[in-house]
């Protein structure tokens, strides 16, 4: 169900030594823009407003109060339960992704505060095998939900995932059932679960935990859907509208409660959470 190839996103690497240039070209408006401005602007082009891709760490930095974030992920890594190898061995793919991203898998999980409100937040990372959900991602989401319910914190999941991780076969598919089942813990504890869908939230992630939020927010520019454009065109050769699976499509068809600009997301979450927290 991971329906996207890993694609090259325009990245903003101002901290890395090897990247000396101060300017970058925006893929959307073709303007040369000052990199540090882009970085300071939540990876949004200061000229045209186009969003650049955020890593999980950058996403958390953009939402969580400075200095409040504490990693609470389980110390686990992908196993290779099927001994899977396609064009390359799964183990090699994982090692390479770990080196490239500095992450153990496609998700970052931790405790922190949004405008002073304690939360548990999980952010997926599309750079890591397309943000795909295998056993580790499923486990971290469940661990996050359990931590939230044990400590009485709201749970926020920021999705950026093509779907289930194919290389773990049925183990990955079953993470959909696992996360859906565990999601109930929050409801039992009367704690809100806010699902934030970003580019992309598709396949097995959209068809499980991401669609089960009490409130579902789409970031402007998100792609949301189950089967991707190519799959549909290849399977039933149907012509699809231009706005297919965009944020507007999801909103118009009632999948999401709101579409929010990246620069407003933190404030929006803060005010939404304050409603639930005050009621408690």
């Amino acid at each position, binding site marked *: 169900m991971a329906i996207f190839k890993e694609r090259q996103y325009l990245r903003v690497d101002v901290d890395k030594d090897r990247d000396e240039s101060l300017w970058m070209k925006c893929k959307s408006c073709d303007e040369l823009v000052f990199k540090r401005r882009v970085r300071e602007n939540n990876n949004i082009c200061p000229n045209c407003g186009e969003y650049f891709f955020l890593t999980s760490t950058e996403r958390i930095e953009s939402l969580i109060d400075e200095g409040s974030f504490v990693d609470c992920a389980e110390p686990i890594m992908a196993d290779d339960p099927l001994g899977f190898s396609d064009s390359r061995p799964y183990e090699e793919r994982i090692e390479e992704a770990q080196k490239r991203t500095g992450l153990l898998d496609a998700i970052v999980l931790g405790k922190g505060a949004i405008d002073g409100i304690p939360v548990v937040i999980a952010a997926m990372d599309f750079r890591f095998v397309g943000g795909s959900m295998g056993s580790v991602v499923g486990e971290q989401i469940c661990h996050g939900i359990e931590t939230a319910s044990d400590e009485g914190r709201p749970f926020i999941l920021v999705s950026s995932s093509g779907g289930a991780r194919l290389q773990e076969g049925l183990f990955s598919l079953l993470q*959909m059932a696992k996360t859906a089942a565990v999601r109930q813990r929050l409801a039992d504890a009367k704690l809100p679960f806010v699902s934030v869908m970003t580019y992309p939230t598709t396949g097995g992630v959209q*068809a499980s935990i991401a669609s089960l939020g009490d409130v579902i927010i789409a970031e402007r520019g998100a792609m949301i*859907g189950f089967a991707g454009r190519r799959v*549909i065109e290849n399977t039933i050769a149907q012509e699809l509208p231009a706005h297919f699976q965009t944020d507007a499509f999801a909103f118009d068809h009632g999948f999401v409660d709101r579409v929010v600009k990246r620069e407003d997301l933190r404030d929006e979450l803060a005010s939404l959470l304050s409603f639930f927290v005050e009621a408690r």
Partner: protein
Amino acid sequence: MSDERTLDLLEAKIAELRKLDEVDGMNLSEEVARLEERLEDLRRELYSSLSDWERVRIARHPKRPYALDYVGEIFDGFYELHGDRISGDDRAIIVGLARFEKRRIVVLAQQKGRSTEENKKRFFGMTRPQGFRKGLRAMALAERFGFPLVTLIDTPGAYPGLESEEQNIGGAIAESLLSMSRLRVPIVSVVIGEGGSGGALAIGVADRVLMLENAVYSVISPEGAAAILWKDKERAKEAAAALQLTAGHLKDLELIDAVVPEPLGGAHKGFAETANGLREELARQLNDLSALSIDELVDARYARYRSVGRFRRGPPAGSE
């Protein structure tokens, strides 16, 4: 399968000889017996060492028994219910009341079509959002009256299309997963043919998950995996093997509870025998489950899904 065609030819030949034997009184019984023995040997040879891809082919065989065949054979008085009460009636999903031995149950199953006409009606067994929502009705009904839920899985996958997406098929699958994970009645799911990805799992969250011997269950079709991971649709055979999607592999991986045997060549070579095996296994599983209280049942189901997944502890030495 070209080898299967050889078997069919041989079978036809034997039937012909038998007829000659009867009609013309030619004494061919020895010849017939010899050929029958040879047929049996060939069959065993062909089917005892099936590759994973060959099992995919059997799971999709046009003569394979479908859900309604089993419903008619195993259950009594099936009373079909229709519609999701919102937007329509997905004929790729069947729902209804039935009796199974001494129990009253609710059946929720995926149904493929046999003819082109029927396949058009049943969308080749691909479930649409209204189908999953009809399933949610079945679950609610089962729970309200305390009837066990039996689901039969047989789908290439959820229906990919504009209308499906417009009606939030992903959200419908998610709701189905959540509902099944906490449903307060026993649930037994059986993959009878193709267990295609999220569309299959959506009706497969259960206390016991069974598979027919030649059924397959996978996160993605072998063709889909070949296209995405190998960038070559033609490598579906390799993908099928890599995905470990057969009943045998999934039992070894402890992801399913039991495998229901099929006769050599597949369920379509001996439907009564297959259905009988399924009946016995279903009865056994439902009996086991009825020994548990509802709380114990739901807790055990939760624990089952909470613990699914394989990972290693600890970051690699030298990192971080």
